[in-house]
């Protein structure tokens, strides 16, 4: 018996891959549909969809960059401590002390590239009219993912804890003061008051919730760390799953007009 056949009849192999080798049309479909990785791609796609210049692969490249950011980010977390005492030193040590000290550079350049790829992906979707019915909802999900990508960059920008990041986040979070209703310098904030006493003050408005304090300090560093490493990636991961699923359910990749 050939080795290949022996492996295919091995119970361990058959417990993972339930179908025979993809040698005919029926088994090719069955193998793709029952494999987690392969089923992310449709069994069959229209011929135009594999043309590079129709999509520029920008959605896939964005997802690939998200995976790069996840892998390098998890590795960075093994050394980085989000405290006033250590954050800046750990960031320097990730370049100067550890082996293969390029992971932080990969993480940072990957983040820049991801924002650019998202923009180009949206440009492609706009130019090909792929936001039109029945894909309106997926466009909305995509806009949410754009916002989350920008928020990931914004929260990650504080973590090196140098002068640039502290003041950038100070300026950025100052915008939250002007949030309507829940920013203490924004319009309509006086609406929320009891007996003339404002409920929305510098100690209770949107900026205060974002930073955990009235100014950028250790509380803000910790909040941004958790948002950057856990909260936003979880939400983005859920929305990405929804986004990819809807591509298929809305009739696959859109065709040329």
């Amino acid at each position: 018996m050939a080795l290949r056949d022996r492996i295919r009849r091995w119970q361990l192999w058959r417990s993972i891959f339930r179908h025979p080798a993809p040698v005919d049309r029926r088994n090719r479909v069955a193998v793709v549909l029952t494999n987690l990785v392969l089923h992310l791609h449709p069994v069959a796609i229209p011929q135009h969809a594999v043309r590079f210049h129709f999509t520029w692969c920008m959605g896939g490249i964005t997802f690939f960059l998200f995976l790069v950011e996840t892998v390098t980010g998890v590795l960075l977390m093994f050394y980085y401590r989000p405290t006033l005492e250590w954050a800046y030193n750990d960031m320097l040590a990730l370049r100067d002390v550890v082996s293969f000290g390029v992971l932080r550079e990969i993480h940072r350049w990957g983040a820049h590239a991801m924002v650019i790829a998202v923009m180009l992906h949206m440009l492609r979707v706009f130019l090909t009219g792929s936001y039109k019915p029945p894909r309106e909802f997926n466009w909305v999900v995509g806009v949410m993912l754009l916002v989350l990508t920008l928020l990931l960059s914004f929260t990650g920008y504080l973590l090196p804890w140098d002068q640039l990041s502290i003041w950038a986040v100070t300026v950025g979070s100052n915008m939250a003061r002007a949030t309507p209703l829940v920013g203490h310098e924004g319009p309509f904030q006086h609406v929320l008051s009891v007996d003339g006493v404002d409920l929305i003050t510098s100690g209770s408005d949107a900026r205060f919730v974002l930073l955990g304090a009235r100014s950028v300090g250790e509380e803000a560093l910790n909040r941004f760390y958790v948002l950057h490493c856990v909260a936003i990636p979880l939400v983005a991961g859920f929305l990405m799953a929804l986004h990819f699923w809807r591509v298929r359910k809305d009739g696959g990749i859109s065709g040329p007009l």
Partner: protein
Amino acid sequence: MADPNGQAQTEQPAAGPCVPVAPTRRGILASVFGTAFGWGMSALGAATGLWAAATARFLMPNALAEPPRRIKVGPPADYPPGKVETRFQPQHGIWVVHGVYRNRRQIYALRSACTHLGCITIWQENEQRFKCPCHGSGFYADGIHFEGPAPRPLERCAIRLASDGQLEVDISKTFQEELGQWEDPQSFVEV
């Protein structure tokens, strides 16, 4: 084609006489390196292996924020008979003692970790004993256990008289009494 499970496909002979063709070494190599797909998968595998190795190396720290393993604890004159020096314990985990072991006056360094489950012992000056707060083990000033669950004496660290006249303790090297290692001249300084 009609066979629904597809197994028969792999054994379908080509046109002509049914002669099974054994795979040749050249044929296998050609199927791996003779195609762009084979080259691509080989490159992917190599990149994955390199990445895994680099990740493993990255996770091994190159710098530690631990106190040094060799410490100077002062000249022997700082240790009159019966002295138990406790000031090195918080950072380095050792008691430095001028005591008596088998009728010999020695200066030695005891690890402060209890030999039961590794809690940190406390020197009780009035009782003249090391007492473990976890389960009540007690040790005399020479490190020998006499009460509680501890199964063996405290461990000694290497100690020597350095060239500058100070005692130097090497915390990375330990000596156990029950193995007869306290006879090792590295484990004490004769007074």
